[in-house]
């Protein structure tokens, strides 16, 4: 699977209702050790209910300056959430389908890796 196949894909609930778009995926360096580092494990997908694009991750990193831009992007990406990879039922050519009863988490990245 290529990451580009996931990004910007529409996200649907198990019953087919539209939930938004994949704006990013969260990786965690806790996979099996592969060479010099642990392999990044796909932790979850970030879903924005309004837009398939994200700009500089304003909605995830808590950056609040310049204030006008920060407020604009926070508003534009309101409702963005993280769904764990285990809650993804299928990735098709058309959409990412979530399992019934999937759990949603805040999209904020508390420990920025870079």
């Amino acid at each position, binding site marked *: 699977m290529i990451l580009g196949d996931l990004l910007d894909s529409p996200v649907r609930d198990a019953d087919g209702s539209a939930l938004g778009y994949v704006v990013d995926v969260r990786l965690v360096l806790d996979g099996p050790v592969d060479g010099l*580092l642990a392999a990044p494990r*796909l932790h979850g997908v970030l879903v924005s209910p309004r837009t398939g694009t994200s700009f500089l991750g304003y909605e995830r990193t808590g950056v609040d300056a310049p204030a006008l831009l920060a407020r604009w992007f926070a508003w534009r990406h309101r409702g963005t959430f993280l769904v764990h990879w285990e809650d993804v039922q299928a990735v098709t050519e058309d959409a990412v389908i979530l399992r019934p009863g999937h759990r949603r988490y*805040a999209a904020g990245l508390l420990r920025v890796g870079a």
Partner: protein
Amino acid sequence: MSYPPDEQPLGRAFDARLHLLDRQILDVDGVPVCTVDDIELHGVDGAEVVDGSRPVVVTSLLSGAVLATRIFGGRPPPSRWRRIRWAHVADVGTAVRLGVRGEQLDVTWPERWVRDHIIFRIPGGSHDPG
């Protein structure tokens, strides 16, 4: 609408588009190799996984001729990607640092070909100018 905070995983967390895509890749000597144009994901057992039933890990960083597809849409065919195995990655920061020299990687073959077949034939091109 507010959601509960995520359970913090033990490892370092980062977002692919935010912290990995389009980053410069530097080799062990700090020489630029290419940029991260995409990422290849596989199940931990190496199998193709398209649902959440099994853990998925990053196996390779991909680089290729993506200018046309970024302008006009679509994606390069899989055969056009050049892969750098994650096993070669030493650090992820403002740039992605490798633990090997760029010359050892398949991704730099066009540069090597131009050097060996074109630059080498130019008078004075076969040795270090220093």
